[in-house]
């Protein structure tokens, strides 16, 4: 009896934890990916420096997205921000100045997005979609529609070299960004208020949270992080491609959403995003190593995103309700006849 209550207490705690945490689906995918890859293509783990680099690329953009999605907004412009900042950086001859201007451009793009969302009142899906197209055009204009070579190629090559073991500067930056965002969202008051803004904006406003300033912060974070990813890409490839970023957009959205960041806001975690980025990074590298062409990789990542977005607990509940009301309507229709 006593044992039983303890067990149910433990079960209850586990169930509580499962209900509170949002990383469940990400963990399932990660476990699946690790098992399948370990059996079919173990080289993805032995070549872990490549895998880590891929995870860092997907994860960095996904981290910025997480900050925005937590508030119930969305930043589709990250792909173009990545391209624009890379092109800006490569067209400025001085490396240091180029990096600073590129990062500033990312923050500026974030501010513009936030102005449209907060002050004009456009839905962030549409506002950032317009920015996605306009900035893609801007990247073409700045770069004259062809890849721009970095003038300081030595710096780029030095940047690609590992610092300690497999840790390249890219991976290091990703780890620092991950820790910084994790601390910001769980330990800093302004960051914790992101959850409140996403959970119930009106309640957050009534509780005295500066909702508008938080949304500005969120978009600035995602713009800055996307620009950072653009800078890193340009350094590693020693050239900036104006068409960069479209496949990153898909993978980073998939990472954030499968990691449990709920699109309506208020729920999710940076750890979940990391889990999502890990599973997608390992999957992509394993697919590339086993000679699967990029078209089929797109099918895989697209399917994961589609499954992720419809297997959210909220979405499943909505589907169950739809099915239930459908059958209820059928029953009611049959009663009078």
């Amino acid at each position: 009896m006593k044992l039983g209550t303890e067990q149910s207490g433990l079960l209850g705690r586990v169930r509580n934890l499962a209900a509170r945490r949002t990383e469940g689906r990400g963990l399932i995918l990660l476990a699946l990916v690790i098992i399948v890859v370990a059996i079919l293509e173990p080289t993805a783990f032995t070549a872990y420096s490549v895998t880590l680099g891929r995870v860092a690329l997907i994860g960095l953009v996904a981290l910025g997205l997480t900050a925005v999605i937590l508030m119930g907004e969305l930043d589709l412009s990250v792909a173009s921000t990545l391209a624009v900042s890379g092109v800006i950086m490569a067209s400025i001859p001085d490396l240091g100045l180029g990096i600073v201007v590129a990062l500033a451009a990312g923050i500026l793009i974030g501010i513009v997005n936030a102005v449209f969302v907060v002050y004009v009142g456009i839905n962030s899906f549409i506002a950032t979609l317009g920015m996605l197209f306009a900035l893609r055009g801007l990247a073409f204009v700045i770069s004259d529609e062809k890849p721009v070579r970095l003038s300081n190629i030595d710096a780029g090559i030095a940047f690609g070299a590992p610092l300690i073991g497999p840790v390249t500067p890219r991976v290091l930056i990703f780890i620092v960004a991950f820790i910084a965002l994790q601390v910001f969202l769980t330990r800093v008051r302004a960051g914790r208020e992101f959850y409140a803004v996403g959970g119930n904006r009106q309640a957050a406003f009534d509780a005295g949270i500066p909702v508008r300033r938080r949304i500005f912060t969120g978009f600035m974070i995602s713009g800055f992080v996307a620009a950072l990813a653009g800078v890193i890409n340009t350094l590693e490839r020693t050239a900036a491609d104006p068409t960069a970023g479209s496949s990153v957009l898909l993978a980073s959205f998939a990472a954030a959403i499968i990691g449990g960041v709920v699109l309506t806001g208020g729920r999710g975690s940076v750890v979940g995003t990391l889990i999502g980025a890990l599973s997608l990074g390992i999957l992509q590298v394993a697919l590339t190593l086993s000679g699967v062409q990029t078209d089929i990789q797109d099918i895989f990542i697209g399917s994961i995103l589609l499954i992720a977005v419809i297997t959210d607990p909220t979405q499943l509940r909505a589907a169950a309700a739809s099915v239930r009301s459908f059958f209820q309507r059928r029953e009611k229709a049959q009663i009078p006849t």
Partner: protein
Amino acid sequence: MADQTTTAAVPPRAASDEPGLAKGRFSLLVWMSERGVFLFTALLVVVAVVFVNGFASLANITDVFYRAAPIGIVAVGMTFVVISANYLDLSVVAQVATASVILVGVSNTAGFPAAIGLALVVALLYGVVNGLAVGVFKANAVIVTLSTTFIGLGILRWLSGGSIFFGPEDGPIRAFGQAKLGPIPLSALVLLVITAVLWFVLTRTNFGFLIRSFGSNKAATRLAGVNTALVVVGAFVITSLAAMLAGFVLAAFSNTAVSTMSDGYDFSALAAIIIGGTSVFGGKGSVLRTLLGVIFVSVLTNILVLLGIGFGLQQVAIGALIVLAVSVDALARRVGKK
């Protein structure tokens, strides 16, 4: 009736007020969002005729029609998704490309009816998958159609090997693509017929009424006993069928098909819809406005090309126009609420 979980699943939308309440200096804003497109399209055409060298030639106008037809067919179809307050369907890019590759590629080997049948099945598949994910699972339309775009284009490029398909020189596809009525190509007439049919569906049928009703107030429509999932699926299926026809028209225009030929169609179609005055907030808009928006975007693009302005700046200009048009709509809407 509707239990608690269904009510919780969809947050109630604020009812859209009639913008006619606005007064004073804000009424210009409201007027711009309501009637602006008529004036601007007329102005643009006049400016083009008077100032742009080479615009007012028969060959150029025929060219504008040729380019406007497929984009226009996509846009009038996608208007249904936008009016039902589901933002947009990004996967039209994949749908148009798939339809044109199937039309040319499959009809070369398996004959014309097989190609059209297969294209129809694929289009219905797109519409139903997008519609079920958005309508039943209540998932976000932008994310859903982003993922189906990548899945669809991935499958298309994988199966077609990314190669270009050429239609036979004397085949029916080429004949259709070359057919003209005076300076107006047959494809532009197809656009007009589709617009007329969709206008009838949207304004004169029960289904069209439900689309508009769902777009302006989802919760109220559901509480009135409407099967809202079916309405959403219907909107996406109409978009898919229109995208399929656009793919046919596009393939016939050049008698070739390749998986990259519809790049940017999501963008142009959205621009036409929004500039035409259909609201991204849902519930408000019409296919005739979209047709006007198509004329505006096509003429503008043509002017930019004639003036020798590059692809990048064209994208910036039209992207800025989208944001501007949505801003005017959003501000006018807010003014109307006060």
